[in-house]
Every structure is written in C-alpha cells, then in structure tokens.
C-alpha cells in the first residue's frame, strides 16, 4: 500500500514533508471519489449504476425500483459513510493532538461511550423529561445533540483527570478512559432496561455500529454538526502543532492555549457525537487513519487534518462495502470489519512506540 512505503530508516526523510502531504491530498481525494462511486454502484440489489446513469443521460426516467435503491438507499448511505468516516478520523487526529498522544482515540478513551449514553438517554428519556414543545422543536436533531453533549462532557472530564500542570499522563488517560467508558456503558445498559419495545428497536443498531440505518433525515441531522467540526478543525492546526511541545511552550509561542483546547474539545465532541448518533460506535478509524498519515507525510496538523478526513471517509466506505458484500444479501456489522483492521494496528503502535509513549 502506497501509504506505508515511506521509509524512515534509510535517512531518506524529505526536508519538506509539506509538499509531499499536499500531493498526498490529491491522491486521497481521487481515492475517495473512486470509493464513493463503488459504494453507489455495488449493493445487494442488482441495480446497475452505469445503466441508470446512461438512461438518465438519455433523458429517460428511472424505474421506481432503481430510483429507490439509488436515491433513497445507496446515496444517503454513501454520503453518511463518507461524513462519519471523516468525522471519526478527524476527531481522532484532533484528540491525539490535544492529548499529545497517538493512542488517544474517542472510541478507546470513552468519548464514544459518553456520546452513546447521551444518544440513548435522549431516545429513552427524551419524551418523558423534555416538554413536548422542545421535543418538537429539536426533532431529528435531539439525538445528535444529546450525543454531542455526552461526548463533550466525557472529553472534559477526561482532560481534567489526565492533565496536570499542562502535561498529560498517558497511563492516567487510558485508565480514566476505561473507567469513563465502563460507567457510560453501565448507565446505558440501565437505560436499555427502561426502554419500551419501540425504543428497543431504535437502540438495537447501537451495539453493532452500522451505516444500514442511513436515511436522508439522519444525514441532514448529523451533517451540519460534522461539517462544522470538519471545517473548524484545520483552524486548530497551528495550535495543535505547537501543543506538541507542551502547553507552556505553546503559550510562549503566542498560541491562545485555552482557546485551542476548548475548541478542540468541542470539535471532538461534535464530530464524535454526531457520528455516534447516526451510526453507533464504529471503532479504530480514529486511531488507524491519523497514524498511517503521520507515517506517510509527517505529524503537521495542517496537512494531517484534511488528509485524515479524506482517508477516513474512504476507509469507512471501503469497510462498509466489505460489510455488505461478504455475506450478501445479509450484512456484517461494520464495527467488526473496522475492528479486524484496526485492532492489530493499535497493538502494533503500542509495541513500536513503547519507548516514545511514556506509559
């Protein structure tokens, strides 16, 4: 694979990895376009994208079946896969920059679990706790917003617990993340007991993590939050670069450290929360993508963040393609695919970087 062929041992490190990263962006954009096309073209139903496009080009109307499959099923699923993948990868990259650690991933340190708790609480308790007017006003945004709030709270607690005097302890971060994740999981479990049948059906896809529930309504509810986080994240790039030197040194470089931290936490919570709200917990994209990109073109966040969005989108769509073709017409939960790909990479990072990461 082209990304991993970058050889660090031969002393062949280019002095300017910024240019390499720019070129990489072009390739990644191309890759995303191809994967999106494939995602539209391939599926359990035999609809053929090309013949559909040809007939559209000839000015003919699509058959109802083709129209439903392409427009109501595959297109929202493809767009949602791209958005969620980008959101997961970028929030992983931002979180790693914030915690100054390559192992910080929303899925691993309990932020996804917190977001999931927020979403489940909204589904189960929303109707009984909130006035009907508020429920109606929020509509489809209720669940993503609640997930955002849950992710935001867990990120703040995590940062407070694991950062002392501007330095983050990795061991504390991972342990606190485990505790947070367990707590959120337990409370979520309690809520599931309280759920009625309809709510249970709403909840089932959470544990699996899947893009199968993609609809235009869900897409439109999640898209603004994710888009905001994706557009805002690159503005943090310079601050996150400086933070690699530690909070104090970043401050001496003129970075408004507190503001960068607050915005980074909001971006992580927004992107993770919205992604979790529409697709459940999908793990490991947030850790694999930034790590591969750092190997390929360096840790500079100005290139890392946009490239992470592109590669994350491609990777999740690719995993989704696998998940819905290997045992077609049934579907493998996508979380299984990303975990099979991602968990070994995570272990490999741990092994290789034990000296660099101060565990």
């Amino acid at each position, binding site marked *: 694979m082209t990304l991993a062929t970058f050889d*660090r041992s031969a*002393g062949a*490190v*280019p*002095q*300017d*990895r*910024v240019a390499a990263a720019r070129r990489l962006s072009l390739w990644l954009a191309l890759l995303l376009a191809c994967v999106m096309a494939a995602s539209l073209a391939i599926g359990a139903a035999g609809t053929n994208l090309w013949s559909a496009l040809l007939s559209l080009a000839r000015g003919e109307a699509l058959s109802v079946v083709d129209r439903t499959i392409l427009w109501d099923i595959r297109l929202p699923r493809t767009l949602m896969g791209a958005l969620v993948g980008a959101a997961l990868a970028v929030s992983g990259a931002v979180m790693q920059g914030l915690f*100054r*650690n*390559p192992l910080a991933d929303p899925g691993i340190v309990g932020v996804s679990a917190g977001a999931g708790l927020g979403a489940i609480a909204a589904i189960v308790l929303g109707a009984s706790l909130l006035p009907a007017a508020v429920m109606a006003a929020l509509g489809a945004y209720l669940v993503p917003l609640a997930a955002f709030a849950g992710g935001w709270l867990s990120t703040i607690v995590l940062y407070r617990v694991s950062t002392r005097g501007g*330095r983050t302890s990795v061991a504390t971060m991972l342990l606190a993340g485990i505790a947070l994740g367990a707590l959120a999981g337990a409370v979520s479990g309690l809520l599931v007991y309280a759920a009625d049948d309809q709510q249970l059906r709403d909840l089932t896809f959470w544990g699996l993590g899947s893009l199968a529930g993609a609809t235009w309504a869900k897409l439109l509810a999640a898209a603004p939050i994710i888009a905001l986080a994706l557009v805002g994240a690159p503005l943090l790039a310079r601050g996150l*670069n*400086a*933070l*690699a*030197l*530690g909070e*104090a*040194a970043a*401050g*001496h*470089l*003129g*970075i*408004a*450290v507190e503001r960068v931290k607050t915005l980074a936490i909001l971006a992580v919570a927004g992107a993770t929360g919205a992604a979790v709200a529409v697709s459940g917990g999908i793990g490991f994209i947030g850790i694999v993508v930034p790590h591969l990109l*750092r190997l390929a073109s*360096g*840790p*500079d966040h100005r290139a890392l963040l946009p490239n992470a969005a592109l590669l994350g989108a491609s990777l999740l769509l690719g995993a989704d393609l696998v998940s819905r073709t290997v045992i077609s017409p049934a579907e493998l939960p996508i979380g299984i695919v990303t975990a099979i790909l991602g968990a070994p990479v995570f272990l490999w990072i741990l092994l290789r970087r034990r000296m*660099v990461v101060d565990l």
Partner: protein
Amino acid sequence: MIFAGHDITVTLGRRAILHGAAFEARAGQLTAIVGPNGSGKSTLLRALCGEVPFTGYVTVNGQDTARLKGWELAALRAVLPQAATLAFPFTVIEVIRLGLTAGTSAGRDRLTLRALDTVGLAGYAGRFYQELSGGEQQRVQLARVLTQVWEPVAQGMPRWLLLDEPVSSLDIGHQLLVMRLLRDYARRGGGVIAVMHDLNLTAMFADAVRMVHDGRIIAAGAPAEVLTDAILSRAYGCALRVNRAPAGQATWLLPHMASA
C-alpha cells in the same frame, strides 16, 4: 530597557517557593541566574514568563506583561524550558519552524536553516528530533527559541531570550559555542536571561549575576561582586574559594578547592 519582576511571590501546592523576589535584567546584557538545586531558579524564570501563577508584577520594556496578549509577548520574548518534550515524530526543521510565529514563507524558511547552523547542527534538518542525542535535542530547542526572536532588536525595542539551563547537556565545545552566541545576542542589543549551574561559564560570559537561595535573591551585581567566597559558601552550603586567572579578568573556581 529592562525586564523586571517586582515582589514576585510564588506558591505551588501549599509551599511558598519564591518570597517576594525582586529581579531585574538589562537589555544588551547577559544576566545569569545561579543558585543551588531547588532554590527556585526555574520557578523565578517561569514566573517571569507567566507560566506559573504569582503575585507581584512583571514588566518587559516598561510594559506590564499582564496587559500584553500572548502573541504580543511571543514577539518580545522566547522561552527555553529546562526539560523539553515532543509528542509526535517531527523532524528537526519542523520543530524549528514551530518557532516562526507566522506562516512559513520561503525567506523565513532560510532563517530556520541559519538558526540550525548557528547552534552547530547544519545538515540535521531532515533528522527525526526523537532520534537525536540529548545535547543535540537541547540545541534544536535553542534554535527554535532563537528563530522566534531572531532579530535582537525590533522596532526599536529589545527582544528577550529566557533560557533555563541552556548548556546543561552540552559538551565543553558546544557550551562555548552557545555562550558566545548568547553574548553576541546581547551585544547586538537583545536581552538574555539564563539560568546557569556552571559558575565558570557564568563568570566568563555573564554581565550580571543574580544568586537565588531559598526562594530569595540574596545577591545581585556583576560576576565579581556576586561570585565571592562568602556568598558562594553561604548559598551552596560548602566552603568555596574563588580565584582570579593570571590574566586578571574572570573569576574561576575548581571543586578541588572546596573544603568541607
């Protein structure tokens, strides 16, 4: 123009670490802060650069630092910490580029290479920071700090280097290289404030010395005024005797000559 701390008191946890210290350094001079381990040198420097909460106030070139924004301060002074960490596999040139407060235009990129050259690391640009030796890493950090305030004087105002033990992991050749570099920065109108442990280098290169002991500045003045038998023996808790080089200039001192 001066860099001054007035009545600086720092309390960390429940311990008072600095007790109303008064500090002053002049532009055009290399001011050394010396004193035993744990006396509060780093804490004083961290208070001067606003890194720890303190009571009292600090002025740079006559301006109260509490009224300056982060980026305004960053244009006036750069800070080298006693211990530096780096989270991700940046290359040397990328670390130094972090010192550029604005973007990386081609002209300024040449600056980063020049900074690398002045600390004796020409040719290291593409190496990974984490794969360098301790002394090489320290010089990369110094180059980063130099890049941040490259011109000693900007818009008629002196700029400042605040360095916590800049030569602590360097060999004797690079110690001299860096001390000459710092003295040159001061000669060209900038201000240098450096925490030092090596009293001989301090005597050779410093224009002014501040002796910190137990959270107080117990002596301030020219090297010959501060580095005396009485003050050194009191501060370091062992009987030390200073000497003059035959040429009659700098003070020197050997550990051999200490009596218990």
